[in-house]
């Protein structure tokens, strides 16, 4: 096959890997940005060799904040769990040869890459990257350079990147949803789909609806910046001493549009991870998922309710205080399906036969982080308490625990779990375990203290602590977190080394190294182009039939016909 055809492949597996590598590059850059931030918070006056002027200026710090958030949320957390693993494994897990619209799929990736490059370009243009955070509230982001450095072309590039990303995402969602609805193998009813497929399906619906709204809002913001409109800009603005000729817009309107997207976005970031964790916990406890139906329904409930709670980001924004109570009640309610999932994960482990392979360690870690991060959300869900915690490090700790840790652990879990299938090789278990232990301890050391900083009044997006006297007392916590951040980031090198080394040097992987039940494990590692070499499976049972009493082995693959199940022990199985 020619190089061009390989690069612009329409094979969902290649596209999935392309997304995976894109997210690996993005996460590396994102981590470097965060290390620069953490360094600056402890040594704000340090001379840095690559910074113009020697000492990092506050606007440079804010540019790091903005781009770290943007790259991580869009190009890591939205890309890896859904676009990378979902693209690779959704068709295989439902017994299909590819996605419904392979050309559209290919387009989605290249548009996402274009968006990524556009975002990176903001670093190198005059004025630098924007300083308005990944949330880009106008008027700060809506008036151009007059509000600060980076708000000129940097902000425009950022906005264009986001708009391209939205469009790419919409195309991807069409594929995921259509494929799940129309291309399932015979016998694979909705209630026999792996929970990973459920998660990708619900996430795609969220993506479809949420990114469409961001696209609309983003276009309006772009017009405000470049066409003189006033969607978000009120009259009488005096920026940098200059009266602005705008009239009648509402900054709050942006917040509503943005967070209507922004809240489902965080569920887009976590739902696939939840699916993988359920999947992996069952596999390595050798037990069915506890309450499969409730788990599937909980995914749907979280997805649906995720659209109703955006106002909890706006309790102190100037929004109607009565709406705040409504949003609060809905936000607290969304804790219920989340609690169901946590309870059921524990239930899956309970009575199991737990095997601590690396993917399982990350799955267990996910549960711990989701508990911690989810519970801290209960404070933020109440407006009276949020009034104290809003925009403090408490919020930063909360969302990092759920997104920057739990979701990332979902990605690690998926990587270790599916690596043998994708690359035909095993990752090194010892290195994997070392990576886990260091990261598990490390991230708790980085992000738990953030809650304490926040409760004491430490404010987020502050370039340093020199502005308010009371912040000095929190510096020891910052030092501790920075120290932990550097060590934990170094530990990720173990993962990268393991990942790339095992591509060539890893032990050859069998078809089903984890003795798993779902359809991706019945084909070769890696799978052939049409996923099943012409022998497409039918499905005869649910996805997590482990340790079925009376069966010869402790797992019953989904595709085995009932009369085959009894004869399983006679067939040479490619197992552990």
């Amino acid at each position, binding site marked *: 096959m020619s190089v061009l055809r390989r690069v612009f492949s329409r094979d969902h597996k290649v596209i999935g890997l392309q997304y995976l590598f894109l997210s690996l590059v993005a996460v590396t850059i994102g981590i470097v940005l965060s290390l620069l931030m953490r360094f600056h918070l402890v040594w704000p006056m340090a001379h840095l060799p690559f910074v113009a002027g020697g000492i990092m200026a506050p606007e440079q710090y804010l540019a790091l904040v903005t781009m770290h958030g943007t790259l991580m949320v869009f190009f890591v957390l939205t890309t890896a769990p859904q676009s990378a693993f979902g693209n690779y494994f959704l068709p295989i897990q*439902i*017994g*299909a*040869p*590819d996605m*419904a*619209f*392979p050309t559209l799929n290919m387009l989605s990736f290249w548009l996402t890459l274009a968006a990524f490059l556009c975002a990176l370009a903001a670093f190198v243009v005059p004025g630098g990257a924007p300083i308005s955070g990944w949330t880009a509230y106008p008027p700060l982001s809506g008036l151009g350079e007059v509000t600060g450095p980076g708000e000129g072309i940097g902000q425009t590039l950022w906005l264009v990147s986001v708009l391209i990303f939205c469009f790419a995402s*919409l195309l991807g*969602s*069409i594929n995921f*949803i*259509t*494929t799940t*609805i*129309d*291309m*399932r*193998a*015979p*016998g*694979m009813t909705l209630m*026999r789909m792996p929970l990973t497929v459920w998660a990708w399906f619900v996430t795609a619906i969220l993506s479809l*609806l949420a*990114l*469409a*709204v961001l*696209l*609309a*809002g983003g*276009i*309006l913001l772009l*017009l405000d910046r470049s*066409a*003189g*409109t*006033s*969607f978000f800009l009120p*009259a009488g603005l005096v920026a940098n001493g200059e009266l602005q000729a705008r*009239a*009648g817009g*509402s900054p709050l*309107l942006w917040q*509503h*549009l943005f967070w*209507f997207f922004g809240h489902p976005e965080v569920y887009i970031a976590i739902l696939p991870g939840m699916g993988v964790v359920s999947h992996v916990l069952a596999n390595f406890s050798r037990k069915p998922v506890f309450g499969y139906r409730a788990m599937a329904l909980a995914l749907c409930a979280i997805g649906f309710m995720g659209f109703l709670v955006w106002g909890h980001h706006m309790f102190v924004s100037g929004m109607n205080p009565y709406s705040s109570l409504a949003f609060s009640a809905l936000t607290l309610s969304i804790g219920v399906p989340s609690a169901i999932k946590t309870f059921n994960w524990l239930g899956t482990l309970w009575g199991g036969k737990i095997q601590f392979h690396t993917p399982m360690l990350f799955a267990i870690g996910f549960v711990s982080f989701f508990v911690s991060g989810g519970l801290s959300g209960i404070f933020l869900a109440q407006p009276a308490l949020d009034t104290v915690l809003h925009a403090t490090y408490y919020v930063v700790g909360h969302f990092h625990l759920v997104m920057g840790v739990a979701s990332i652990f979902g990605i690690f879990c998926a990587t270790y779990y599916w690596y043998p299938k994708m690359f035909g090789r095993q990752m090194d278990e010892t290195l994997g375990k070392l990576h886990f232990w260091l990261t598990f301890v490390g991230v708790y050391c980085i992000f738990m203290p953030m809650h304490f900083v926040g409760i004491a009044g430490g404010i987020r997006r502050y370039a340093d602590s020199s502005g308010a006297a009371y912040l000095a007392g929190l510096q020891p916590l910052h030092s501790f977190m920075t120290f932990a951040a550097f060590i934990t980031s170094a530990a990720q090198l173990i993962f990268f080394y393991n990942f790339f080394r095992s591509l060539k040097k890893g032990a050859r992987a069998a078809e089903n190294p984890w003795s798993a039940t779902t359809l991706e494990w019945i084909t070769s590692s890696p799978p052939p182009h*049409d996923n099943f070499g*012409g*022998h*497409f*499976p*039918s*499905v*005869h049972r649910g996805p997590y039939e482990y340790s079925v009493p009376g069966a010869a082995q402790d797992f019953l693959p989904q*595709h*085995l*016909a009932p*009369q*085959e199940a009894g*004869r399983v022990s006679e067939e040479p199985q490619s197992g552990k």
Partner: protein
Amino acid sequence: MANSAFTESLPLGDGRSGNGGASSGNGGWGRESSGAAGVPQRAYTTGMMIALGGIMMFFLALVSAWVVRGGLASSNSQPLNVPRILWLNTAILLGSSFALLRSRRCLRAQQEDGFRHWWSVTAILGVMFLCGQVIAWRQLAAAGVFLATNPSSSFFYVFTAAHGLHLLGGIAALLAVAFRTTRRVPRTAAVGVVAIYWHAMDALWLFLFLFFMIVKWT
């Protein structure tokens, strides 16, 4: 590998058919009615409905922005004098939908000429609609009403531009079907989804037009 549970054909779909044994029935979507290898024809319809869901969400966001904005007191809000040519444009677009229905009826009756004739009429009326929209813009510009003039004008331009762009996409799709460039997708499927899209854009326009009028009259 135990292959009595496998089947060589691709009876893919909603998973209902086939619960045991080899080569279970194709469940109604055999080779003739599938698109690209393994893609059942109905997937194209599903895909288009999903895409329309996203598109409608996009316009819904713009509409709610407009409603919120409309509720704000502002020094420069004035209702827009919607150019009267919009009535004609609306009629033209409505006509194009009827032309499209006509062409599909011809296709079902296997009248190739009739199909091509009315399909072309649809495209031509679509182009005329877009020209009419551009004329409306020029009329507004001549009256000194531009994108940034006031909130109503901003939204008017945004809505008509967004809708126009989507309709342009629809025209491109009409042409693609007419000139048989969609080789991987069977024609019946392509005609079906383009028709859904076109009618949806027509309905969307009717809704937006009604909205302009209601805002103007209240």
